[in-house]
């Protein structure tokens, strides 16, 4: 695979259309709503307010309040309404204002949406999309900064995605809408304003496919969402010292793209997994365990390293907050130790 073919950022030049991550998501919603009258958007303050992160800005003007519905502050009820509507002919895109608030709706997401097809023996389908603004770095402290995607990776019946670029943010949302099963998309709040090339029109980013964003032979770094960008920056720095990291954009937490990861690890013999959630029982645990139980185990030249969040709620103080999740420096240092087998 080729680095150039998988850019994460684009210059504002020529034929390349540059949008922000938030704009790309909005464009996906608008395209889907134009093409399919059963698509509706629901959530708290997604109408005139435009959503807490302005992602749904102007959709209400374009599609009206019958299709862009402000819900009361009722996450369990709202998500359940989306589930029921999906079960009976609509395709709701449900925005949790912050992914943290999905904790109020675990019942409907996990006991209902994820299981209904199975419990009904395949006789029903729940094509709902949950949008999950996620992550730390905004000074919003412990209840507004979590990265809980690993929980949903543990739930059969769900698909769980994590776009790192505007292009993927759009393509994944369209793919999620095309999917007959419930899909959760973890969007990183700090990425909403990041910009990049976004193709025109409708296209689907394949669900369950990771992507080699940078190739290298010395070690493999698997990272998704904002951690991809930090990992790429760390890889850039390492390259100066002749350490060549292969950086894989995880993209899909459920299902995981075993092949892309294992192929890389067989080549490099070293694996570092970087994720923003709490380290213990996080996304990286599954990636590590998946590799450790595979035939790629025999290619491993070093322990599998994980970098995740500190074992604490996200703190308010900005320096503590920064220290609590992986940053370019810590990724660089870990990768360096791993490359030199100092672990």
């Amino acid at each position, binding site marked *: 695979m080729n680095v150039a073919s998988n850019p994460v950022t684009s210059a504002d030049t020529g034929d390349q259309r540059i949008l922000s991550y938030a704009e790309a998501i909005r464009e996906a919603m608008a395209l889907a709503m134009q093409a399919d009258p059963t698509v509706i958007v629901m959530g708290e303050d997604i109408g005139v307010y435009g959503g807490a992160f302005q992602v749904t800005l102007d959709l209400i003007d374009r599609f009206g309040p019958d299709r862009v519905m402000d819900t009361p502050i009722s996450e369990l*009820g709202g998500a359940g309404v*989306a589930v029921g509507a999906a*079960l009976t002919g*609509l395709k709701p895109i449900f925005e949790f204002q912050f992914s943290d608030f999905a904790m109020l709706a675990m019942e409907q997401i996990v006991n209902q949406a994820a299981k209904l097809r199975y*419990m009904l023996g395949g006789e029903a389908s729940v094509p709902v999309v949950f949008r999950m603004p996620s992550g730390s770095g905004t000074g919003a402290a412990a209840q507004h900064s979590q990265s809980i995607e690993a929980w949903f990776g543990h739930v059969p019946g769900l698909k769980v995605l994590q776009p790192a670029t505007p292009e993927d943010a759009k393509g994944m949302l369209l793919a999620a809408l095309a999917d007959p099963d419930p899909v959760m998309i973890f969007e990183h709040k700090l990425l909403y304003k990041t910009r990049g090339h976004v193709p025109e029109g409708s296209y689907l980013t394949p669900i369950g496919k990771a992507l080699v964003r940078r190739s290298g032979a010395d070690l493999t770094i698997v990272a998704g969402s904002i951690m991809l960008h930090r990992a790429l920056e760390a890889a850039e720095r390492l390259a100066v010292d002749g350490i060549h990291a292969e950086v894989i954009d995880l993209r899909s937490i459920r299902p995981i793209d075993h092949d892309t990861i294992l192929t890389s690890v067989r080549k490099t013999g070293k694996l570092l997994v970087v994720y923003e959630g709490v380290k213990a029982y996080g996304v990286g645990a599954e990636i590590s365990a998946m590799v450790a139980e595979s035939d790629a185990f025999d290619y491993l030249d070093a322990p599998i390293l994980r970098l995740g969040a500190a074992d604490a709620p996200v703190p308010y103080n900005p320096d503590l907050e920064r220290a609590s999740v992986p940053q370019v420096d810590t990724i660089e240092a870990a990768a360096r130790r791993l490359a030199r087998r100092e672990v």
Partner: protein
Amino acid sequence: MADPTTDNRPFAIRHYAPAQLREALKRMYLIRRFEEGAEDSYTRGMIHGTMHLSIGQEGSAMASCMELTDADKITSNHRGHGHCIAKGADVGRMFAEFFGKETGYCHGRGGSMHIADVKTGNLGANGIVGGGLPIAVGAALAAKRLGKSDVTVCFFGDGANNEGAFHESLNIASVWKLPVIFVCENNGYGMSTSTARSTAVQHISQRAAAYAMPGVTVDGNDFSAVSEALHIAIARARAGEGPSLVENLTYRWRGHSKSDRNRYRTKDEIESWMAKDPIARFRADLIAHGILDDAAADAIAAEAVADVQKGIEFAKASAAPHLSEVTRYVYAEA
């Protein structure tokens, strides 16, 4: 339909055709015999897990479904066999489900607690108390957005009325004026906890005012009273005027589930309610109003017995799922 101003007969007798009433009696017998059959099969080890029998509550289930077509939806709860049959399900496929067979409504994956029949509009029982309420509101939203006149009837128990899901669902349904009827089957207990100990108000219907919707409490063992309450609520829903809450006072004769020792209620109480059997009462009403005679009623009751017997045979003869298909139906097949 007879003119209610001159016709003194109960609503149901006036309002429904004799054939419909006879079919309703049939389905009430079918519910009773189905559940007795399930109980018996459980004792014989043909059903595993647990079951929540609605014996004694058949009037509420059947009368609530009188005016629903297959396009109308219901959501049900753990005590859902009656709703399923009332909405039109086949008892053979229900037994097959209880026996864990591939021919069951849920292909053996769901069992009693998830019994559903999507084709007749039953979106499923639910193992989670209150789990069906927001789903019902969602179904009503879909009907409204898709420009259909379908309604959704949402069954739940008195216990469920203390779940947050109840509150959020009724509020959303009211604010958005959705065509959903919330039917609370108040059988006096959530498991062992009486409504007096669990619920701050005496009647669940008193909570309707908190959602600016009509709320009414009726004798849930009085077929006519229930069907009339539903008739009004459904008409309101189909007219786009929004949701209603109907509370059917009833009683379950059996324990909460197979493991209940009935330590929280008295034998006297149970017996006093058994004397108010909704099936016997409905049958007597039909006979009193000349809809059928004793012999015809017996024939209907016998049909139900035969259907249940046939259903059990069908279920027994059906194949179980393949062990290799544990993960089938988790996701849509490509």
